[in-house]
């Protein structure tokens, strides 16, 4: 049944089937060396269960909201915003190079596979993943719609969730394909991570602004008024399916629904046109796009820190990977949209205030504190996993002290990324708060806390830099639990900051306690991580 449709679209069905099957198989496979079949399968199953729990929990919040709210427009807007955010972030984080990476092209470029077939395989790979994610993330909200509003609304909800997810995926992928065609392979190769950064600004910022706006409106009116401006927001287009099914058949419901179908058709037509026809040609050009050759006389600077041994090696590697490894660079830079949006939101709500004074009522959550505390651990996550993990054999055959490598990794992360980041946040906060000393003390404490978190994550799961294969979405559950913990700490810090800085003794005591904890974790790291890393085996 599918074959004629594929043939009509210019896609070779047999090749598509074979390549798609392989691509999906590879997504679920991990490195085999040193692991038994049972352990590999157990690890994959555990990761899948973890993802199921994580996204089901996220969906549960929306399901509760669906259950208790009486405004169907509000419910559908929130639910579709949630869907767009989940899918948008998943595509950006896990499939960031799905369309714009020439890696597979080296294997398939010389085979008799047409550009369109190749494009369809890549597209299918991402769509299978996002549709599966939609099923897991949306089953509870859909169930809630079914039970609360009846079968018709439930079915419309089902259609809305999947259509919204499909449209979000297509929009991001079309963005990549369009850039590849319009700005050219050389520019995409150089600027891919910045493009992703811009997109994550869009996805994260859109989500944040929308939830803030909706939150404000709902708090005052308990419903969401349907204004023409709000109807420009794509989530409302898909949400209108639900309203139509409930019997509301006005212009403000029909037009958005038509707009959603129209947009999806336009995107499908665009992807099926020149974008896919010239796709492999562009990828081919990417494989030969060369970086400018530097003058042979240029001698790399040795810097001020990390001058010798393991520390120098790690610093050299991390610096070069940041310059050249898209995934790592994106992982590092991804903190920026989050921070800037939290800063912006904090300014709006009055949450950015002099930390030596009590927080304004109801503004006890500081997203910036959360971002600061999360940053090093996110860095650690991106530091250990890499597409180049096979090159990590050098750490295993050289007489390097692996414990020193692990500890140096932490110090390099702090020096290269955390300190400049803290300086940036301090400067911006000082600009708004006005008291550099107060801000510096507060950010300093958060910096120490975030370093402590980094030390602890290294203690729990020590790993050599860029030595583990990348795995799509496998850290979601850990990240979720970690986020809960960090949110709790940042709320506590925000509530008690004025008391904390109220007396010199209290301030010194807290700083002393964090430093002491850091020393204890360092001692534990020396004792435990040395033993653990000594028994690590090469995973390539």
């Amino acid at each position, binding site marked *: 049944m599918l074959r004629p449709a594929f043939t009509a679209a210019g896609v070779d069905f047999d090749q598509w089937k074979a390549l798609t099957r392989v691509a999906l198989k590879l997504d679920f496979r991990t490195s085999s060396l040193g692991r038994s079949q049972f352990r590999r399968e157990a690890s994959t199953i555990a990761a899948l269960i973890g993802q199921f729990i994580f996204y089901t929990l996220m969906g549960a919040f929306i399901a509760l909201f669906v259950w208790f709210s009486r405004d169907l427009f509000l419910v559908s807007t929130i639910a579709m915003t949630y869907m767009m955010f989940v899918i948008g972030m998943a595509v950006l984080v896990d499939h960031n190079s799905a369309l714009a990476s020439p890696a597979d092209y080296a294997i398939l470029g010389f085979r008799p596979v047409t550009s369109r077939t190749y494009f369809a395989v890549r597209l299918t790979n991402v769509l299978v993943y996002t549709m599966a994610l939609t099923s897991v993330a949306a089953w509870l909200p859909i169930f809630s719609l079914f039970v609360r509003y009846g079968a018709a609304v439930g079915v419309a909800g089902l259609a809305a969730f999947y259509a919204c997810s499909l449209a979000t995926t297509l929009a991001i992928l079309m963005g990549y394909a369009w850039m590849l065609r319009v700005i050219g392979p050389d520019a995409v190769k150089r600027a891919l991570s910045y493009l992703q950064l811009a997109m994550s600004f869009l996805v994260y910022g859109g989500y944040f602004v929308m939830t803030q706006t909706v939150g404000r409106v709902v708090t005052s009116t308990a419903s969401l008024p349907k204004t023409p401006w709000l109807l420009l927001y794509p989530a409302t287009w898909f949400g209108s399916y639900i309203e139509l099914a409930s019997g509301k058949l006005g212009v403000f419901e029909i037009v958005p629904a038509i707009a959603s179908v129209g947009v999806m058709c336009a995107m499908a037509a665009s992807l099926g046109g020149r974008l896919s026809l010239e796709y492999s040609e562009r990828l081919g050009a990417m494989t030969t796009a060369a*970086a400018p050759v*530097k003058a042979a006389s240029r001698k790399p600077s040795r810097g001020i820190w990390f001058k*010798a*041994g393991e520390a120098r090696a790690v610093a050299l590697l991390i610096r*070069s990977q940041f310059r050249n490894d898209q995934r790592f660079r994106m992982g590092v830079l991804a903190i920026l949209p989050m921070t800037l949006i939290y800063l912006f939101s904090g300014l709006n709500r009055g949450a950015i205030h002099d930390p030596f004074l009590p927080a304004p009522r109801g503004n006890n959550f500081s997203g910036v504190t959360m971002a600061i505390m999360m940053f090093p651990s996110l860095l650690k996550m991106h530091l250990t996993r890499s597409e180049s993990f096979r090159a990590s054999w050098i750490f295993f*055959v050289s*007489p390097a002290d692996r414990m020193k490598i692990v500890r140096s990794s932490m110090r390099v992360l702090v020096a290269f990324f955390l300190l400049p980041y803290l300086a940036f946040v301090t400067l911006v906060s000082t600009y708004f708060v006005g008291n550099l000393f107060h801000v510096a003390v507060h950010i300093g404490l958060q910096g120490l806390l975030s370093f402590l978190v980094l030390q602890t994550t290294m203690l729990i799961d020590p790993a050599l830099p860029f030595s583990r294969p990348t795995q799509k979405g496998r850290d979601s559950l850990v990240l979720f639990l970690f986020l809960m913990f960090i949110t709790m700490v940042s709320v506590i810090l925000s509530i008690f900051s004025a008391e904390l800085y109220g007396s010199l003794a209290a301030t010194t005591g807290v700083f002393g306690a964090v430093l002491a904890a850091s020393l204890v974790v360092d001692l534990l790291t020396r004792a435990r991580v040395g033993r653990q890393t000594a*028994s690590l085996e*090469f995973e390539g």
Partner: protein
Amino acid sequence: MIKTEHLSREYGSKVALNDLNLVVEPGEILGFLGPNGAGKSTTVKILTGMIRPTAGRASVAGYDIVERPIEAKQRLGYVPETAALYDGLTAAEYLELMACLHHLDSKTSESRATELLELFGLAAERHQRMSEFSKGMRQKVLIAAALIHRPEVLFLDEPLDGLDANAALVVKEVLKQLAGQGRTILFCSHILDVVERMCTRIVIINNGRQIADGTSEEIRRTTGTASLEAAFSQLTGVRDVGRLAAEFISVLDRA
């Protein structure tokens, strides 16, 4: 020198290496041969400390690789079979990285890196990222990286792979001279002509077990064959190459 005693490694229920006993003396170039999946790479990975044996002992330059890995690794150099390197680095940075991991001071590291890159004709490209390098250029960098700390023992897994004829000649000559200086070399390759010409002794393994040990001539004599290639085929189970090739062609014709 390299020494293994009853060395074994299992991956789950699969035995990759079984009771390997091997001694390679200083000054020797040992050709380490075997069909695909015979256990060559597993042996090299154990001897270089990348993985641990499940039984037995192994020492490199007199140091047990499990008990005293740092001392052993200070004295070994390794060229891996897959040219896996952090190709975002430049050639100079990669050699510096290796020198740092071997705790060479910056002056020594820089002068040796310059010498080695000049020897391999990569001086002009030293500040170019290796992602732009050809396979042969990457292989040259890997060989240079294996030599930068002047190791006593060298493990080379297909070191000539990707090299042009001139570079291969240089590498072969370098290896002979290094052996002449008393360094121990374990050379894995599937190119039997090269092994026959370069190696002072040959060990063949199959299914994780050692099945032959001696000079090329001794192995030929023992198997009653005219060439190392024929001896290898006979020892590793491929007895009638002609018939196998004919079957292969007939399968292609059928398809």
